[in-house]
């Protein structure tokens, strides 16, 4: 076989191509690794076709939450995060959190989920509710693009959580349903990396996306705003039925669930109604679901109201206990015995807290140290 000769020009050309390839390869590989292995880095993300439909013309319909928004081109969902761009629905919240903080997991609030551990809290702008008392309205009632944000890809959040010794990532503060795709992808990635996920939400979400979420979210702190459709409509701009359905879905999916009800004085502090709520919880979700009655503090559009009297909260707690709920807590009132976890059997305080700070944990392998009764929750 004859020796093939190569001209100097071709040699230089090939060498150049090889050099460019060598130079570009790391970037391409890194991009591929980040997008496919670590998670996407863009803040504009096309919503999965499972959760929206292209309608006639350039209209689209979103199916993440029960609002099922129908959007013309250029319009944004009620939650302010999903926008119709020429017949395609995009999330503007992806990789775009406005809050990143390290908190105690009890702040979510979750009292039966790795007590005393830290969580990396993440929130973006936007919310599909319009609660008159929202304490985070500066974030929840704004579009993500209108806030000061951090560019935080899933892999960075997980790395940050691990570096700072957080056992969980909490999707919280505003409404994670509004940043569904970002939360889901981060939860997928973090669960692969051994960091668990918790979600604090109003539970106003459609069953299908919620079921998908249940595969990656380990604990839910759902705000059941009240037990009256009128209250949901007038005060929260929402409806009760989908929330009750969501609670049942979470229970069916056997995920850890805690419920919070903010008691707004003169608005939803009717004890007969709260009793009905407790009965519903017991019948549909069981007596072991912790219920937190939280104190309202004047905020946003309800600044004219006083804070909830502690006695009202104590009365609500008593009702919950009378109805057979085993773990009824008081939030935003500390110190108070309603902050502690009591063993339903021996009545001893198995986790002593002040607000969301754990003072003493008397649980051993999820059991009461004194009488060995198993206490429901995620303890390890």
């Amino acid at each position: 076989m004859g020796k093939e000769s190569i001209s100097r020009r071709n040699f230089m050309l090939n060498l150049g191509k090889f050099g460019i390839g060598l130079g570009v390869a790391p970037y391409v590989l890194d991009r591929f690794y980040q997008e496919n292995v670590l998670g996407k880095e863009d803040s504009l993300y096309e919503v999965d076709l499972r959760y929206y439909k292209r309608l006639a013309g350039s209209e689209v319909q979103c199916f993440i939450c029960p609002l099922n928004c129908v959007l013309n081109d250029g319009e944004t969902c009620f939650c302010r995060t999903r926008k119709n761009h020429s017949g395609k629905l995009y999330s503007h919240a992806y990789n775009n959190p406005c809050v990143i903080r390290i908190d105690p997991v009890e702040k979510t609030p979750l009292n039966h989920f790795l007590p005393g551990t830290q969580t990396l809290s993440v929130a973006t702008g936007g919310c599909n509710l319009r609660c008159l008392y929202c304490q985070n309205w500066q974030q929840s009632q704004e579009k993500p693009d209108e806030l000061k944000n951090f560019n935080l890809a899933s892999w960075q959040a997980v790395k940050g959580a691990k570096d700072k010794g957080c056992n969980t990532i909490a999707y919280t503060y505003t409404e994670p349903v509004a940043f569904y795709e970002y939360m889901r992808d981060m939860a997928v990635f973090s669960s692969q990396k051994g960091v668990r996920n918790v979600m604090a939400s109003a539970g106003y979400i459609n069953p299908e996306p919620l079921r998908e979420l249940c595969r990656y979210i380990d604990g839910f702190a759902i705000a059941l705003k009240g037990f009256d459709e009128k209250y949901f409509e007038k005060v929260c701009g929402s409806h009760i039925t989908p929330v009750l359905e969501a609670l049942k879905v979470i229970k069916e999916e056997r995920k850890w669930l805690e419920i919070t009800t903010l008691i707004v004085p003169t608005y939803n502090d009717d004890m007969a109604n709260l009793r009905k709520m407790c009965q519903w919880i017991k019948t549909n979700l069981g007596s072991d679901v912790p219920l937190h009655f939280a104190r309202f503090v004047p905020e946003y559009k309800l600044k004219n109201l006083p804070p909830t009297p502690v006695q009202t909260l104590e009365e609500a707690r008593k009702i919950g206990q009378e109805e057979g709920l085993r773990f009824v807590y008081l939030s935003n009132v500390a110190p108070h015995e309603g902050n502690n976890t009591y063993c339903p059997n021996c009545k001893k305080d198995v986790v002593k807290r002040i607000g969301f700070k754990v003072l003493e944990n008397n649980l051993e392998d999820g059991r009461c140290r004194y009488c060995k009764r198993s206490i429901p929750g995620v303890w390890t």
Partner: protein
Amino acid sequence: MKPVRPCGKVIYSSLIIGIVVVLGVDGRLVQSGVVEREKNIKELREDINSLNLINGLNLTQHQIKHVLQYTEEVKSLKESYFKDNPTAQEMEKTFTELKTVLEKNQGIPYDIERRTNNVNERGKEEIERFARDLKSIETKLDAVLLDSQKAVIEDFNPCLIPPKNLKDPVRVGQADDHSPGEAMLERFRKLPDTAFEMKKDEILEKHMENIEKHLGKMTDKEEEKEKERLLAVVKEARAMSDVDFELNKTSLVEKIKPHDERKELATKLHKINEARRTELGKAGKYLLNERVVPLLEKRLDDMKKFAKATPVDLNKIESADICKKGACGLKE
């Protein structure tokens, strides 16, 4: 010139006498007014301190009833020791005699010296017994308080305006949770390099003033060292990316906290004394106190009278925005 009538004489003389008397006792009146006001302010300050603590403890009716019962026990105990106690009476008599003798400065008669030592010894023993009895009441008080309430009492410093953690504690799910330290670091981070170089001394000076308010005046050397330490943390914060700063700001704030040697020593001393202590602890000092009684009685009364306000008519409130089916889209 008109002659002064007899009734006029009476009126004028009374007026002059009155003025003279008033002028004469004026000093005393002013003095007593000052004392009275000083006392009032002191008592108001004490009551405000107590109310801040009571409000921060969220005591239940049951707990308040117990605290009042124990305060009553302390009162009876004090009476039995100081009012009807023969040793206390003898002590008062002997000390008065000793004082009279000392005023004359002509040596102390043996009998008075002996009686003084004797009664003083007995007095000490009685006081120790009194302290033990007082402690046993405090133990009962401890038993009705939650550990979390005891932790609040232990951390409590008398104040007129309560600190944020008592006045407006961070709530569940509340995003806005910035400490003053975080806010300061954020201010520093926002400054461009040139502005930072120009303003850093001024801001650090202000911060040092705040530190000195809490720790007392520092020496120049201490101040220099503190500034250097602070500046290093600020520079570290400025060099961080936004994400890193958010993740690390709590630990950075811990780093900017000044090293308070006096507080450390006081805590150490407190721990040593705790084991040997015969006097009341913080819980006893704050709650088994006669001045707290009317405050707690009023609180209990208010709690008993508590009635929920009339429910609002939801049809009449300005309702939240709601998405009408199929028309939820928000236009730009």
